[in-house]
């Protein structure tokens, strides 16, 4: 993933803070923020993840003219149709991988906090990958990625490390 332009905007910060149920005025109220040691509105600690909005290829966003794997007339716009002709109860169809994997870990190192007006770039590189056996979901395949967020001056502002997991089967509840 590479994001060439991630403009950090006050309205996006406001919506993001609302979505995590955080009514802290540091995320919404400019005059309050000006009176604090921080000095201005900042973004909540996990906001960098919303760079997905600015990744042109982000696979978990429906795109104009492309089939989407969520439901429409059928349970899936893409996955089911191909498999429906085969065996609709096939194990593969029920595997966790049909959901594109799950998020296993996320880490952020803050060199400074993001503010409205920042224009970031994000560059992601693959990290390590490993496997583990689990009782509830079979073989787990983990893969790591490292994303560096840089500001308009080229300074590193946030380093993110994500770990995704693809499960062999749906996690037993």
């Amino acid at each position, binding site marked *: 993933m590479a994001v060439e332009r991630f403009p950090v905007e006050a309205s996006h910060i406001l919506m993001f803070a609302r*979505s995590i149920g955080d009514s802290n005025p*540091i995320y919404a109220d400019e005059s309050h923020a000006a009176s604090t040691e921080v000095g201005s509105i900042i973004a909540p600690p996990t906001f960098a993840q919303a760079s997905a909005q600015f990744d042109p290829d982000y696979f978990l966003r429906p795109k104009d003219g492309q089939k989407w794997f969520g*439901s429409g007339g059928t*349970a899936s716009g893409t996955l089911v149709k191909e498999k429906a002709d085969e065996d609709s109860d096939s194990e593969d169809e*029920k595997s966790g991988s049909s*959901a594109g994997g799950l998020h296993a*870990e*996320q880490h952020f190192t803050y060199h400074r906090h993001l503010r409205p007006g920042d224009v970031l770039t994000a560059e992601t590189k693959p990290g390590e990958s490993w496997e583990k056996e689990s009782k509830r979901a079979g073989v787990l395949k983990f893969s790591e990625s490292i994303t560096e967020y840089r500001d308009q001056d080229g300074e590193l502002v946030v380093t993110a*490390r994500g770990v995704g997991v693809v499960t062999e089967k*749906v996690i037993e509840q």
Partner: protein
Amino acid sequence: MGLNAEELNVGDSYSEVIVEDLTRTQIVQYAGASGDYNPVHSDEKFVTEVAGYPTVFAHGMLTMGMTGRMVTNYVGDGRLTYYGVRFVNQVWPGDTLTARAEVAEVREENGETLVDLAISTTNQDEQFVLTGNATARLN
């Protein structure tokens, strides 16, 4: 703002209920704000018939974001230098989550006084859904 180093002791803790009766609407709200529209989080038909889960579930990042609110309420705004978590169990609509931070260490690094926190979030069945760590600057 911020915590005072001389008032902190290893083992001190702080907790908050970060969500009561998590709604599907809040999960949709997070999808819209974050840009992660994976249908496992909002599409009942897809998640039950294709992915094979009992219903939709929250983004791990929603739980991390809500837990982050507890952390910043404790350490102060703009104080975090690190925040990292593992998602250890799924979070479902109807869940009530409590997030907790415990002081693991107070230390000096490059002329700054820092606190390392052990973070955990549990559901109404006292099952861990998230575990992690955070580091913040102290006064």
